[in-house]
């Protein structure tokens, strides 16, 4: 039987406000336990919530960025349940009337086509604190620093059909919230995480299968693995004649599996009702217009522009615009190399940024904004490729030298003597020496083993410390071998 997977994600993005959503406490990560919990966060008798206007502005930004409706009137509701890290005994969230509804984003699929993923709603809510169990000899400790941190919960339509698509969608939202400056996107610290609703059905069936919800996935890798595990598990259950239970599950990254947390029957009745401590949130058009006017260039717009201005492929534009900083870096370098009038040079810059430079950044765990080679220096390096001072291969070594030594391209080239050999006689001399040293191979080549051409090229490169101009070498070697 052929199965089809249906996935919807609920993404929780912590808003990058300085203070909490309903209290004046700071939201910075990593403070000593409970150092950032005031009387409101601790739910002392008599305290009341006051809405943080900045959190509202950020949610509106998000709504505009996904072409959603921003509600003129939205309502905060209480979600009631008992847990030690939920001091009030309820979480303030939005239920029937969320601030944002009915948006969409486009994701690029592996086959090069794109798919529109609907976003049902995005609502404002407060985060809970943390319960700590480890190293406490059976006791539980509560840290309320996170309690009251503003979140938007972004709920997608069940439009995703594979774990890969789910990850592509999540990355898209991740990119978007960072462009908007509304979330730092730090997944390790839990600033960006998701719950995955997964079900399978026989391909072509109209009704959805029974879904499970896997909670709190805080890396793209976990999302992919947890969903794939769930798909396989559910198909196995169904193929062996069983039924998938509607339940909440937890992903165990160590064992790479999901485990049931609570079933539908055990699910809480949250007794949602409008929070009488907060008035309905009213937003007018002039406010929305002001927020709209302050929106930055968004990833899709930027990618389109990079394709138009610099002749980049959709793929390259997509990779470069995954972060605004990376795209900015590229643009500074590309402009330095002549901008739109020199698309070939822009392509060189794109390749270098996506390839060698990203490799160095990853290797040393450095953010693009802290790159040890700035975009102007990178352009300086590429100019030496363009003017044939060095080859593209050597350029990689030079970049590494610049990275390590903090010097410009020319200084590194000179210090290491990496200037390309374009002088024909020098290259010819090297070719002759190589052929003389390998008479047997030369005979084989002449006998028709043309693959050996590459061997000779390699040997000459070795002999010239890779400085021979590759095009010239190619040409001369051909002539030499052909001419006998």
């Amino acid at each position, binding site marked *: 039987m052929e199965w089809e997977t249906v996935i919807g994600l609920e993404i929780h993005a912590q808003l990058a406000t300085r203070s909490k959503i309903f209290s004046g406490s700071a939201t910075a990560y990593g403070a000593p336990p409970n150092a950032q919990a005031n*009387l409101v966060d*601790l*739910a*002392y*008798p*008599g*305290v*009341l*919530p*006051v*809405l943080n206007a900045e959190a509202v502005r950020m949610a509106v930004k998000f709504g505009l960025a996904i072409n959603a409706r921003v509600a003129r009137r939205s309502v905060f509701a*209480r979600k*009631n349940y*008992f847990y*030690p890290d939920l*001091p*009030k*005994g*309820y979480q303030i969230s939005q239920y029937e009337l969320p601030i944002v509804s009915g948006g969409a984003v486009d994701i690029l699929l592996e086959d090069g086509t794109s798919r529109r993923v609907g976003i049902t709603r995005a609502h404002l809510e407060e985060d809970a604190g943390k319960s700590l169990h480890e190293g406490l000899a059976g006791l*539980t400790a*509560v840290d309320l620093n996170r309690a009251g941190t503003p979140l938007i919960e972004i709920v997608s339509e069940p439009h995703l059909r594979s774990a890969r698509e789910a990850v592509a969608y999540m990355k898209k939202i991740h990119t978007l919230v960072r462009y908007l400056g509304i979330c730092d996107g730090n997944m390790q610290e839990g600033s960006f995480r998701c719950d995955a609703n997964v079900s399978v059905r026989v391909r072509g069936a109209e009704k959805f299968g029974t879904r499970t919800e896997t909670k709190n996935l805080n890396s793209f890798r976990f999302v992919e693995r947890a969903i794939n595990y769930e798909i396989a598990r559910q198909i196995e259950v169904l193929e062996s004649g069983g039924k998938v239970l509607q339940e909440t599950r937890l992903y165990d990254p160590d064992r790479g599996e999901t485990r049931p947390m609570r079933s539908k029957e055990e699910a809480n*009745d949250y*007794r*949602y*009702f409008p929070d*009488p*401590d*907060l*008035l309905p949130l009213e937003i007018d058009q002039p406010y929305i217009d002001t927020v709209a006017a302050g929106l930055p260039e968004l990833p899709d717009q930027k990618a389109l522009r990079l394709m138009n201005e610099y002749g980049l492929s959709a793929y390259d534009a997509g990779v470069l615009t995954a972060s605004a900083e990376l795209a900015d870096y590229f643009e500074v370098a590309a402009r330095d190399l002549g901008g739109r009038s020199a698309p070939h040079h822009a392509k060189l810059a794109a390749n270098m940024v996506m390839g060698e430079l990203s490799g160095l950044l990853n290797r040393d765990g450095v953010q693009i904004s802290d790159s040890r080679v700035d975009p102007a220096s990178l352009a300086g390096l590429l100019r030496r490729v363009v003017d044939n001072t060095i080859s593209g291969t050597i350029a990689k070594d030079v970049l590494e030298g610049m990275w390590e030594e903090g010097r410009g391209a020319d200084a590194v080239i000179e210090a290491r003597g990496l200037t390309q050999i374009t002088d024909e006689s020098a290259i010819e001399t090297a070719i002759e020496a190589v052929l003389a040293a390998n008479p047997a191979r030369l005979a084989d080549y002449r006998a028709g083993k043309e693959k050996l051409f590459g061997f000779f090229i390699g040997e000459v490169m070795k002999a010239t410390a890779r400085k021979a101009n590759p095009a010239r070498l190619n040409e001369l070697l051909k002539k030499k071998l052909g001419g006998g």
Partner: protein
Amino acid sequence: MTELHLMTVAELSAALHAGRVSSVELTRALLARIERHDRALNAFISVDAESALAEAAAADARRHAGDAGPLTGVPIAHKDIFCTRGQKTTCGSRMLANFVSPYDATVVERLRAAGVVTLGKTNMDEFAMGSSNETSFFGPVRNPWDGARVPGGSSGGSAAAVAARLVPAATGTDTGGSIRQPAALCGVTGIKPTYGRVSRFGMIAFASSLDQGGVLAISAEDAALLLGAMAGFDERDSTSVELPVPDYTATLEQPLKGLKIGMLREFFAGLDPAIEQLIRAALALLHAQGAVVREVSLPNLPLSVPTYYVVAPAECSSNLARYDGVRYGHRCEQPRDLTDLYERSRGEGFGAEVKRRIMIGTYVLSAGYYDAYYLKAQQVRALIAADFERAFHEVDVVIGPTTPTTAFSLGAKSADPVTMYLSDIYTIGANLAGLPAMSVPCGLLEELPVGLQIIGPHFSEQKLLNIAHRYQCESDWHLRVPRGFG
């Protein structure tokens, strides 16, 4: 000079201003009175003589420095629902029996800034849930008019303390009548302002959409003085309203000529004839001052009690979830696990009435019942508010009795919650509609006080106080003191 304890706030203010008495002398005198009488009344949960005297000394110093306002040095008491920094704030519950608040409620803070001296914290029904003060963990309050009777509730301690002249005035809160009903049963003047007029910050929540702080005092003039100091926008309470606070004392004397009073038909149907007679006599007195009285009908008003007993428990079931034994308040001994901690801490910390309302509230918010109860109640609430609004197109205020009976005996209704709930039948409407309302003493029946209730449109406190004051200029019911407390 009248004996100090019989003086109104306005009179004390004048005496302090003239230097005829110091705040320290006054505070000493009232502390002694509390010491002498409160064993019998149980109107106070805590009295902090030391801090009261320190505040009084500071008030006197402020006066010497020429920095005194009308309330500087005047001693009052706070209902124990208002958080007072560094002092116990119990809300009448075992749950908070040892809770020391780290902060002052906005109401407390504002009155302190005005120089008011806090003598102590008054007794109340547990978490303000009750109409007789019998649900208090600290024992019932006795009505000064008859020690075998209840003072009403939930602000029973404040009402009894003012009636017995242990304090000239006290704060209270009113969710369904908790200022007006005890004011009526104890023969004092009480005002519940418009919802949003007084900050709820630091006032321990019972039902957030209904709770409103106010004053119990001897006279309308005193209520005007104190309300002026308490009221106003507070950025820490999102439901407080950003409107300037008028000088409530400036308009007290305005003539009532042409005032249109609506007699609430629904409040007189089936009313005890003896009470009706006193209300009609009060109306005649207002009529004599030029007011026009006509009958108005609020057809949905009889639905107030069932509506209230869905909305208020729903909100309280959520508001009281924070008392879980984790961070403060009562925690059971040796909890086995988390569930045990919750069950026993809450089971031991809350009394029967609070538990009853938490259960009702949990039920009406549950999946499958929400629409039938909570949503329906909110719809009825809107109808009741619309009834009032229509009435206020025809009349300036509506008037009726505050309570259906005079003070009942201790224990008479405590076994039957529904009968108890019906003692708030006339007061709940104003809370559901968020309207300001007052209770003013208007007579005695067999030596027990009866209250006249005046309800006005949103933010008509000036008008209500004006009417009450003019009435009190022509009557002396508010100056009657129960036997033994003169």
